[in-house]
């Protein structure tokens, strides 16, 4: 099986084009200036989810594997960070590192189990393993079950800067987001990324060229999981809360939606997709169950008529990858 996935756009791994540089500056500029007019906690939430979606997109856009259980990395890191900050008194950067590392370890375990399968089977096994993680989190004493881990202290960054005010927390989250984003960009536009692309386009040929395909896919999977964990750990410090919602399979579905709306396999797509979905959830939250309906409609419309997603369409119109 070659593992080709016709229909899911393949991103081109070339050097940063001028369009991409402009887009990056626009994005960074937005996040730097926006807190003046937009509620900073909302923006921080957005950045965390954007990073999560970018990490997810690394797997689907560049390796061609649809993981339907990515919430497990996001959520486990959230719990690990919350626990280490609250119970062990870690400073925020160590707590987030711990969370990220936990997600990485989980990613390795899951990856070892899942990577040999392809397509639908891969999606199903990630979904099933994510369910196991969910039930583990439901019952393990340290997660607080339905209550979650509450009142997580933000602590002092490097032991010096008090992060409890949004004014201090915001630059920290911004740095993490931009750092993570650039890291993903770098991964994609590297020799490693080129091999991934080769595997994506014709796996058997890559094998015949001597590449250990499974090792590459596993590494990509672990990277994706780790970065999703970075997003999850940061989020639990922003909201000072880690809960079961973060490991539930609907969260996995949401991150798929964000990437789909923004544009699978594009660099900036997940960020835009996350922005759209989170904003929609915020404004429609008062309407309760309508959010689910609207999300479903967006899914259906995107799959039927709008497969390239927002950034994908823009990129297609400009004939440049974004």
């Amino acid at each position: 099986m070659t593992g080709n996935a016709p229909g899911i756009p393949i991103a081109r791994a070339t050097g940063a084009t001028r369009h991409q540089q402009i887009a990056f500056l626009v994005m960074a500029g937005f996040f730097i200036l926006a807190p003046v007019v937009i509620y900073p906690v909302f923006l921080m939430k957005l950045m965390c989810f954007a990073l999560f979606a970018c990490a997810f997109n690394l797997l689907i856009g560049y390796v061609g594997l649809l993981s339907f259980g990515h919430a497990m990395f996001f959520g486990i890191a959230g719990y690990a960070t919350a626990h280490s900050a609250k119970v062990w008194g870690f400073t925020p950067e160590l707590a987030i590192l711990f969370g990220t590392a936990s997600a990485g370890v989980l990613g390795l375990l899951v990856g070892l189990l899942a990577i040999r399968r392809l397509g639908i089977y891969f999606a199903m096994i990630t979904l099933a393993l994510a369910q196991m993680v969910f039930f583990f989190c439901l019952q393990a004493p340290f997660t607080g079950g339905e209550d979650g881990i509450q009142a997580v202290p933000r602590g002092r960054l490097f032991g010096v800067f008090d992060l409890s005010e949004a004014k201090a927390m915001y630059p920290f989250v911004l740095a993490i987001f931009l750092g993570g984003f650039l890291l993903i960009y770098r991964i994609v536009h590297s020799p490693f990324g080129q091999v991934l692309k080769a595997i994506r386009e014709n796996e058997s040929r890559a094998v015949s060229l001597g590449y250990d395909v499974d090792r590459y896919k596993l590494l990509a999977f672990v990277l994706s999981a780790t970065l999703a964990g970075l997003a999850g750990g940061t989020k639990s410090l922003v909201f000072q809360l880690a809960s079961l919602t973060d490991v539930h399979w609907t969260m996995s579905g949401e991150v798929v939606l964000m990437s789909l709306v923004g544009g699978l396999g594009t660099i900036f797509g997940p960020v835009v997709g996350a922005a759209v979905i989170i904003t929609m959830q915020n404004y429609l939250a008062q309407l309760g169950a309508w959010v689910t309906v609207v999300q479903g409609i967006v899914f259906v419309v995107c799959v039927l008529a709008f497969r390239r997603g927002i950034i994908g369409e823009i990129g297609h119109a400009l004939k440049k990858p974004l």
Partner: protein
Amino acid sequence: MKRKLISTLVGAALAVGAGAASAQISDGMIKIGVMSDMSSLYADIGGPGSTLAAKMAVEDFGAAKKGMKVEVVSADHQNKADVGSSVARQWYDVDKVDAIFDVPNSAVALAINQLTREKGKAFIDSGAASSDLTGKACSPNTVHWTYDTWMLANGTGTAIVKTGGDSWFFLTSDYAFGHALERDTEAAVLKNGGKVLGKVRHPLNTQDFSSFLLQAQSSKAKVIGLANAGGDTINSVKQAAEFGIVKGGQSLAGMLVFLSDVHGLGLDKAQGLVFTETFYWDLNDQTRAWAKRFAAANNGKYPTMVHAGVYAGVLHYLKAIEAIKTDDGTKVIEQMKKTPTDDPLFGKGTIRADGRKIHPAYLVEVKKPSESKGPYDYYKIRATIPAEQAFRPLAEGGCPLVK
């Protein structure tokens, strides 16, 4: 049929921290936020009915005539602690909400409790069960109205053992709330000379209780304690009827049952169920009058004790503001503790130093279909537990506010 009520504007505003406490009503307006589960498990227990109760309280208080401007807004926490705390954060930081009411669901309530304390606002909870709200998580900014797990466990457990139900088997919802309920009820049963023959934990939101009920049946315990709530309780009772448990001689004790649950089950399935509540619409003329007004505006659905708690809580809150002329959260809660309460629903009562509102509790039994004479005529009052005995003694809670 639910009503979707208008809720807050999510505006774009500067997120500057709240200013220092002022000796007047902040921005000239008292903004009350009713946060509940508007669309799922607890929507009938709290939900839009709670918003209605709050509005009725504002009207009955006569705010307009006293020159006080009061606004009621509402939001859905969807039973998720992160949604609830995000909304609360936005309410406090951006929308200038002064106090939050209702919040069924202990996980959300604990999160809001923490947040309210940080921001110096006020939180009057009438929906959640966790006795930690007045125990180790107690706060000078929180009042816990209506009920809690200790009261339920003690009220129901003690009363049932005293009437002969001395061997128990627990069917427990496998999360913090269920465990707390089981633990407190077991303690009450043992204290009164009863025995616990076994327990089984089921996952939250279980559809099928057949295997757990089978275990309960084979234990031959006289009483099967349902340490769960909402849909799980309804399913357990329904399926217990199917398996002939009550016909086989065992009785069911619901640890947390509301009027709306009984209505959903129907009297033929729910008859004989024994549990504790702190409000029933048919207690006296005042409660009846209020309930009829409520039902008329609520599609004919009668109020649960949670709704009553919201109404009474808002009334007392507004009275406190009227007295001290400021809506600073910490000060208002302090005033609420200083003044005895008096409302048509719970009668006279007090709020203790740990934030616990004290009022009598009632052990009720669900009527048989033949005994019910009108809509929502569901309960027989078996016993009244006086206020001082109904709730956990002040010293035992582990609340740091209690010296």
